[in-house]
């Protein structure tokens, strides 16, 4: 799996240095027990395929091949969940899974790179211009959380992510696919085997072999879906309270049926691994899986979809008031589509994230609308937490 899509050649005039206003010393790493995970789904996830509006009369004709097959698991009579996400159904039933549909950032063009940066930056300019700080909204949020130390926020993956870059000091944790022991672990085993006359000579040979293997190229390199979930959960069980990572592979211009089944299964596994790894902490955890934009309402001629606008956000966690799909459904009739092609966004996806930050970390509406998400009107957005 692509842990991170390698994408940026910029960054953006900020460093990970601590803000002069925040001293590391004296701050607890972990303010409270609430935990927020933001998964950036790179490549523009097709919300209409993940959360299928099977109750909309236009849906089937817009998606002649993608709507085929099992059609998904009915959720609320109007929406059905893509079959590959079925492992998440128990969470829906317990109210630990929910969605916001017909959402988008204010960005109205359709470039992946700009769209992803815009999503992570959290600004409000329709042309994709970043905020003056050119930093990430999660980082700005951390700056507003009292007592958030330098390990409260963590990016997990090979690259840092803009969403957590900025003035507040945050951690970057890079899990390695190489499963070998640390130097310390090897040392401990050297001692134990060295003291055992039967094993000592064999151990020396085994270590030589292990070194040879480790020096060779790693054919896979990247982590499995469950790995990343487990690793992130481990950070959150320790001292992190806000974690972010990305899952790539959502740009499905052709052969979407196969690709979506694969990616969605990986996303589901990731969420379940988070839940498993968090254990009791799952109850105070919220997971938001967001993407840069949606895809065209109509499937294209090659069994895929092209870049669109309105899409879906997945939410999960014991802290979530789930089992429902948030948002106002705009309809899929041609006249209801944006530019007669995209699902019309009826809400700013940032409003749901703002609600989450307010509920989890007590951020004030004024700060959220001015600092974290400039230009946002939280207006009618419903609370997402229990």
């Amino acid at each position, binding site marked *: 799996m692509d842990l991170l899509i390698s994408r940026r050649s910029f960054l953006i005039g900020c460093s990970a240095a601590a803000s002069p206003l925040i001293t590391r010393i004296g701050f607890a790493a972990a303010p409270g027990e609430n935990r927020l995970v933001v998964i950036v789904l790179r490549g523009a996830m097709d919300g209409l395929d993940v959360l299928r509006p099977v109750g909309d009369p236009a849906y089937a004709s817009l998606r002649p091949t993608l709507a085929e097959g099992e059609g998904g698991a009915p959720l609320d009579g109007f929406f059905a969940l893509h079959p590959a996400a079925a492992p998440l159904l128990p969470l829906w039933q317990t109210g630990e899974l929910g969605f916001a549909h017909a959402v988008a950032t204010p960005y109205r063009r359709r470039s992946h790179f700009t769209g992803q940066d815009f999503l992570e930056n959290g600004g409000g300019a329709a042309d994709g211009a970043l905020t003056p700080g050119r930093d990430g909204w999660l980082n700005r949020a951390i700056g507003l959380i009292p007592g958030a130390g330098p390990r409260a926020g963590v990016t997990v993956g090979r690259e840092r992510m803009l969403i957590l870059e900025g003035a507040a000091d945050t951690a970057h944790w890079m899990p390695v696919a190489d499963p*070998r022991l640390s130097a310390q672990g090897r040392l*401990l085993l050297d001692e*134990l*085997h060295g*003291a055992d006359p039967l*094993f000592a000579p*064999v151990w020396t040979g085994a270590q030589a072999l*292990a070194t040879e293997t480790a020096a060779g190229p790693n054919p896979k390199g990247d982590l499995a879906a*469950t790995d990343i979930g487990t690793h992130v959960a481990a950070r959150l069980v320790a001292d992190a309270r806000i974690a972010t990572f990305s899952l790539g592979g959502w740009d499905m211009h052709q052969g979407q049926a196969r690709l979506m089944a694969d990616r969605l299964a990986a996303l589901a596994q990731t969420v379940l691994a988070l839940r498993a790894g968090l254990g009791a902490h799952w109850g105070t955890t919220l997971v938001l899986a967001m993407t840069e934009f949606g895809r065209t309402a109509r499937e294209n001629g090659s069994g895929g979809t092209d870049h669109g606008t309105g899409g879906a956000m997945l939410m999960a966690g014991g802290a979530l008031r789930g089992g429902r799909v948030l948002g106002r459904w705009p309809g899929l009739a041609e006249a209801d589509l944006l530019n007669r092609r995209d699902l019309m966004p009826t809400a700013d996806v940032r409003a749901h994230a703002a609600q989450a930050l307010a509920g989890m970390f007590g951020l004030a509406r004024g700060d959220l609308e001015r600092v974290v998400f400039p230009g946002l009107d939280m207006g009618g957005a419903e609370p997402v937490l229990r």
Partner: protein
Amino acid sequence: MASSLIEDIRFGYGPRGGTAPLPGGYDADRLMAQLAPPDPDDARWHRPTLAERLALQRQARDDAAARRAGQAVAATAGPELKRITAEDPLTWIPRAATATRGFRERLANLWANRLTVAFGPAAMAHLVQPFRDEAIRPHVAGRFPDMLAASVFHPAMLVYLDQVRSVGPHSVLGQRRGQGLNENLARELLELHSMGTGYDQRDVTETARLLAGLTAGPDGTAFDPDRAEPGDKRILGVTYGEGEDEIRRLVADIAMRSQTADSVARMLAGHFLSDNPPADLVQAMAAEYLRGEGALPPLYRLLLTHPAARAAELAKVRSPHEYIVATLRALDMTGQEAGVGAIPKVGLRVAEAMARLGQPIHRPRQPDGWPDTAGGWLSAPMLAARLDWAVELARRTPPVDDPGALAERMLGDLAGGPETAQAVRGAEQRWEGVAVLFAAPAFMRR
């Protein structure tokens, strides 16, 4: 007082991490009690019987014939057979990992290895598991002569050691086709399965003459008079005639030879205690074997009550099967976990791991089965593969709260235990502590 851990480690598959230590000290009676039937794990791990498999194979043949005749047939037997063969080998580890009677399970696998049959030729696919379940397990706490007879008369052994190809040269079939004896089963019956010494080539050939006619077909074991070699056979100074009953008499006779008694005693003591087991114990067990007409439980009792049985030093090296099972038991796993935590959807791939550690499931290369000495399992690549398994398992399973405490639970005060627990506590992170435990020499011993 010797530690009760010894019951699990030396005579079982290792403690399960989530269970309390057995109360009191080492207790031979507690181990002996495991032998009382029924084994509750039998029902849980029941596999299709040989009779059921033969019926499915008949059905599959009928389906194929009907299809050739142009009939539309819903062929379910073929896929069912495939499913069964895919599952069979994958029960080996979970059954031991979840065994509630570890000593009994160890014995079943030890005897199945003594009377080895193996996957390989397609004809073996449906024979290995029924052999283990029907020829070995019923006799583990019974009499060895009965087990040996069940083995010789089981289609698995008849196919594996080529008895099905053996034809008496003076039999009806031998005369008509010019076919002859195949000595494979006759030889291993004397060499590997029973006496090991004390016979010569003449005895082997005569045994092959007597066995001719014993074969396996679509309905299982059969005696085909057209293949039977006529006339008397002189084996180890005893004269045998023709037919199934005479074969049974021979098996009963060689099972009670003193060489067989010695061989069985040495195998048991060598497997559980040491590559060089105490001579006094081997002698006592051999004598008991002859006195008790091959009854096994009295031998087990001698073994379990010998002073070497309670020694704190762990002299034997776990086989790959015993090792992987012990790691799973430590973590309260079954080996069948898939898609939980960081374990991939395809599961732990225990079969592949077993192959890397040197013991592909039920595929020993030769009829003498898997090695039962340290030298057979300790090579650099095999040890490197154990380290890989230790690291992989420790990283994929949910973190253990206190790996040091787990190490103490696993090894206690047995030799190497305190040092291992201390090293585990010195690891940088929890998973690594668990990996150090599993890769430690003390954990690879039993």
